[in-house]
């Protein structure tokens, strides 16, 4: 037992040192419940910067002159604070996705050791309920066939959750 202690300590030291030495490591972000692995993300004092190409790939949002947009949805960036969100270099444009989450009141959960970031529901998504319209979703049945709640429009729906646990 005693003999194995230094090996264990060495291993712990190695594990602590490796991530910063090999930075940037692979980062995983989960957006709209879909996970995307990024190879060029940068972390800076709790802030996550990703390339605008990765932003589009992971979230479908794009930085446009009018704001950060996806389909009809557009969040303008405060003019005086552009540099908090977008940083252009000759090779690549960086986007601070954590600052954007803060702007749109989106909770972020982070696991530093696993380099994984989870982006929750934005406030516009959370406010759907107060409109009294049933929030829409698409989920698969046992055969994997997707069903969308709004496909049942015109019928009464009894929506019931259950679980095996």
């Amino acid at each position, binding site marked *: 037992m005693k003999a194995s202690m230094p090996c264990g300590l060495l291993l712990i030291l190695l594990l602590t040192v490796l991530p910063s030495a090999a930075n940037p490591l692979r980062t995983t972000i989960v957006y709209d419940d879909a996970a995307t692995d990024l190879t060029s993300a940068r972390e800076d004092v709790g802030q996550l910067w990703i390339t605008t190409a990765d932003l589009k790939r992971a979230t479908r949002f794009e930085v446009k002159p009018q704001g950060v947009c996806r389909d009809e949805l557009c969040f303008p960036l405060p003019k005086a604070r552009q540099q908090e969100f977008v940083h252009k270099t000759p090779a690549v444009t960086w986007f601070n996705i954590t600052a954007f989450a803060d702007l749109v009141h989106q909770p972020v*959960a982070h696991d530093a050791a696993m380099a994984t970031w989870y982006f929750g*529901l934005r406030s516009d998504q959370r406010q759907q309920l*107060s409109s009294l319209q049933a929030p*829409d*979703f698409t989920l698969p049945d046992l055969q994997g066939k997707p069903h969308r709640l709004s496909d049942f*429009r015109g019928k009464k729906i*009894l*929506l019931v959750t259950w679980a095996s646990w």
Partner: protein
Amino acid sequence: MAQDTGGAKDAGPWIDPLKYVSAKADLPPATIETAKKIGPLSYTVLIDEKHVVSKLYNMVNVPTGVWINEQGRIVRPNEVAFVDDRFKNFTGMDSEPYLNALKDWVEKGDKSAYVMSENHLREKLTAQDPNIARAAAEFGLGEQLYKSGHPTEAIAHFKEAQRLNPKSWNYKRQAYALTSEKDYGTTFRDEVQKIGGSKVYYPPPELPGEKKPD
């Protein structure tokens, strides 16, 4: 909607009762009889590995029912929805009043006495503690880590979700089921005792008692 991180593997047997009983040895004859009687289910059953429905509708337990009318509008929000008496011993709750209410709505639509007024609905739907959304994010992160082969690393985030939204039994029970109650230093039974026992585990549905269908 099966709120199951384990997906089809965990939820599947309950969706196809005949397959469920044929795959399991030593089931009581009554269970096998019931499964044969039910057969494959005739309504749509979906698998929700990421607890999307609970997140979108702010649900905290199962079974939770929501009534949605033909226009896609919520007419009764989250409430316990027992359609049989399987768990009556635990809950002390009879499914009959809820079933009667449901039949009344099917028959009378928006004119049913069980359809809630807009004000009442808003009152029940708009209580938004920011910690609820933070809890959902922690739970989502836990699920991502669990699914990517890191069940031990997931535990801290499942715990944080439970701390931020202590009313969610979904967060507790799903997490216990994925690894063990031991990882959380408690048991389901102890947690139920903490709130005053199984008879108050489900808040009863708010049904106007006098207005049952004739």
